[in-house]
């Protein structure tokens, strides 16, 4: 412990816990997408040759933001732990919301709007898109439920 330690720990920082865990959620989901679907299953590639040029740049920007978010999220998390300011349920809510937001954004923006790549090729896409986007919606809903409970004052006191 090298950080500044005070005798009375700060009250849990709900908002920062939510933000920091949200950043980790986005980064983790992106990592799952890349490792599981791009590399292990190889359903879709990091690039497919029918992609329009603007999408390549915007996808690149999105990807590099994800990586920075993941690293920044873990540093922010470590900082919250060091200060004793981590609010657990707000953190879980943030993680679920971040993961859901990425999944939904990837499914709608990357796959459907920008058409960077599709979930899988040479198959009927509909069930895959429904599962992809549905997973995002479910994660967001779970995050919203946990977040609503975290917002209640009696939960806040118990952390």
């Amino acid at each position, binding site marked *: 412990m*090298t*950080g*500044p330690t005070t005798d009375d720990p*700060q009250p849990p*920082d709900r*908002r*920062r816990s939510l*933000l920091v865990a949200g950043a980790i959620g986005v980064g983790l989901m992106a990592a799952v997408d890349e490792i599981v679907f791009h590399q292990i299953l190889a359903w879709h590639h*990091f*690039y497919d*040759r*029918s*992609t*329009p*040029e603007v999408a*390549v*740049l915007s996808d*690149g*920007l999105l*990807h*590099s*933001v994800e*990586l*920075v978010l*993941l*690293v*920044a999220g873990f*540093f*922010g998390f*470590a*900082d919250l732990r060091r*200060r004793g300011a981590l609010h657990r349920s707000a953190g879980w809510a943030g993680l679920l919301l971040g993961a859901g937001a990425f999944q939904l954004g990837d499914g709608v923006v990357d796959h459907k709007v920008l058409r960077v790549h599709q979930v899988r090729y040479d198959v009927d896409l509909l069930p895959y898109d429904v599962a992809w986007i549905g997973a995002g919606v479910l994660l967001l809903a779970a995050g919203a439920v946990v977040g609503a409970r975290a917002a209640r004052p009696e939960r806040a006191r118990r952390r």
Partner: protein
Amino acid sequence: MRWWALAPPVRNAPGADDVAGERTARLGPASVSHGSTAHVDPTGWLPAVALLTVLVGGYAATAVRVGVRTGRPWSAHRGAAFAAGALVLAFAVSPGVALVAPDAARAHMVQHVLLGMVAPLGVVLGAPLTLALAALPVRRRRTATALLRTRAVHVVSHPVTAAALHVGGLAALYLTPLYSRALAERWLHDVVLVHVTVAGCLFAWSLVGPERAARGPGPGWRVGVLVVASAAHGSLAKLLYARAPALPPGSPHSGEELRAAAQWMYYAGDVAEVALTVALLATWYRRGARHIGAPAVAGR
């Protein structure tokens, strides 16, 4: 069709392989670091060993002198970082590259990644400038410090300039005939490698240089430039993948080799981005700061 219009790859015209083969044969000894047979000759390792000895020896001797003079030993962490960087640098110009890369295109990419991204991080974190300044006599140190504070140095070492030199240099290398010219002419090849190394060090220094921590643009700028530069690097890699073997223009490599090399470039860029972000945020974390650009919660 725009220069980067992402059309399906053009099939090699009949006889294209012969032309490529002929070009490779003509390269001969001019492309030692790209050749796959270079590791047979042990003298090929001499320049790399000499480079490593000079870099690490010079650094260690200076560190010892500074330690004796100031009465405080020079940081072992910094020394280890610099030594690791120097080792990577030396390996990248040794025949060892041909041992890890299955073909000439990937051999080049290994050099690009090691010289431009991996080695600079170690070298910069080793704080060789701080060490050199500490070793100078007071009067000359003042001159050197004044030189470092000039507007020219400030402009060149701004993250935006450094990123433009770094990624822009790569774009110039891969999108123009420069790459094939460099394969044919040894001096140009060396100039390219030096540029990649220097621009990589400048970029890393502008972001995480210990001498720059208190000066230059703030963390927001640095993270922003890192994100944009990484995106540009990744997009360039995808472009090379999509347009192989038409890019780099006139290269002797096959489309398959070039696509594999482009993938190495893409994934190595990710690793480099994460490593630079960690180095950048570690400084912030160590200072015990309470917020990363989130002023809304700073008061809590």
